[in-house]
């Protein structure tokens, strides 16, 4: 039960991009197309899993005073490995992501989870936390990228992550009616703001409904009690 909660919290309640506002730079920069967002999501997920597991495994031997430099070196090494792997096997994708791939090092999500979770919990819990947080971040990226590419180009084009060849795509909105703004950098900010507002709206509605239900239950209980008298 506890493990399930760690996993679910990472995806929804503590969603890195939309709830905690961590790692916004890559979320805005790499979401102009659906596939580059997917690539970035996978890169972050892989880094998060590796760093969380390694850090959690060695946490007993890291002196508290120098933990930040130790964490940073582990993270930087992991990112270097992933960057090199991507350049070898997914060259087009690594060119598209460019400097943002290296900048995963200073992505607050990675250091944040390492410091807040992996330093205090066992390896299995850290792994679950990494997968949950990573998937949550990836879903956030994909939602943003979907909205931007769909409104900006009228459809979604799927390409192979390994070779960059187009696989399949669809277009629903005709070319004359697409909103090119959302492919630009200003559209990225505006779309992100709109999605944040939408999430706030949904969260407020859910808690309002909960309150109403509780109030109704209370009133019913009171009525029942009075009826009993």
């Amino acid at each position, binding site marked *: 039960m506890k493990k399930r909660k760690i996993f679910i919290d990472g995806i929804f309640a503590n969603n890195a991009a939309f709830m905690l*506002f*961590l790692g*916004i*730079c890559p979320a*805005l*920069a790499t979401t102009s197309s659906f596939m580059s967002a997917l690539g970035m999501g996978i890169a972050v997920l892989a880094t998060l899993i590796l760093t969380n597991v390694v850090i959690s495994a060695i946490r007993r031997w890291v002196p508290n005073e120098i933990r*930040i*430099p130790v964490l*940073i*070196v582990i993270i*930087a*090494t992991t*990112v*270097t490995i992933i*960057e*090199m792997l991507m350049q070898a096997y997914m060259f087009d994708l690594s060119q598209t992501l460019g*400097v943002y791939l*290296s*900048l995963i*090092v*200073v*992505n*607050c999500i990675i*250091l944040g989870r390492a410091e807040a979770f992996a330093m205090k919990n066992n390896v299995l819990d850290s792994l679950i936390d990494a997968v949950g947080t990573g998937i949550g971040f990836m879903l956030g990226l994909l939602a943003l990228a979907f909205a931007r590419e769909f409104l900006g180009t009228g459809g979604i084009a799927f390409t192979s992550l390994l070779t960059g060849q187009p696989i399949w795509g669809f277009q629903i909105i005709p070319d004359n009616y697409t909103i090119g703004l959302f492919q*630009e*950098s*200003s*559209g*990225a*900010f*505006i779309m*992100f*703001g*709109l999605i*944040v*507002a*939408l999430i*706030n*709206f949904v969260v*407020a509605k859910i808690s309002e409904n909960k309150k109403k239900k509780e109030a109704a239950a209370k009133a019913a209980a009171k009525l029942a009690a009075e009826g009993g008298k």
Partner: protein
Amino acid sequence: MQFLLMGIGAVLINNIILTRFLGICPLLGVSKSNSSAFGMSLAVIFVVTMSAILSYSLYMYVLVPLKIEYLRLVSFILIIASFVQFVEMFLKRFVPALYKSLGIYLPLITTNCVVLAVSLDVVATDGGVPVYNFLNMVGYAFFTGVGYAVILILFSFIQERLINNKNMPKTFQGSGIALVTIGLLVMAFLGFAGMI
């Protein structure tokens, strides 16, 4: 003249926040008051310039001769982190007044992507030849820092108005409207494109 063009380019046209989305977390967090925006801006300009100089020197004179360029990420982040720590200790000991005003922003800078991004930018090569010589590199780093500072301060003034606005829809309060505002700011700065 060359530096003037470089400055205009880095501040108005290719602003690092507005066109490359770097350093947005502090923009949303720190810019809620003017005084902290000023403090953060000064700290960023200084750290960006100095860490670019250090990283460039390390890359060109140590990593390249030893053929271990792939270690640049690890070494740069270590340089930045230890430099920030060093500045913090130095200011605390010798310039307590400045330390008091910058103190809390300095540790935050280590994880500001602008610093690492500029350090990675200045060692970029074009077909095996370095893009920046030493002087150009210092200019580029300094003006990029200034560009960051300009937006941070500009946005802090807007943020004060946004926070005090009582007619804001509830769902947009806080980060939602801040992000939309940055989007509009980007559009305004698009007007400078093509100036050079």
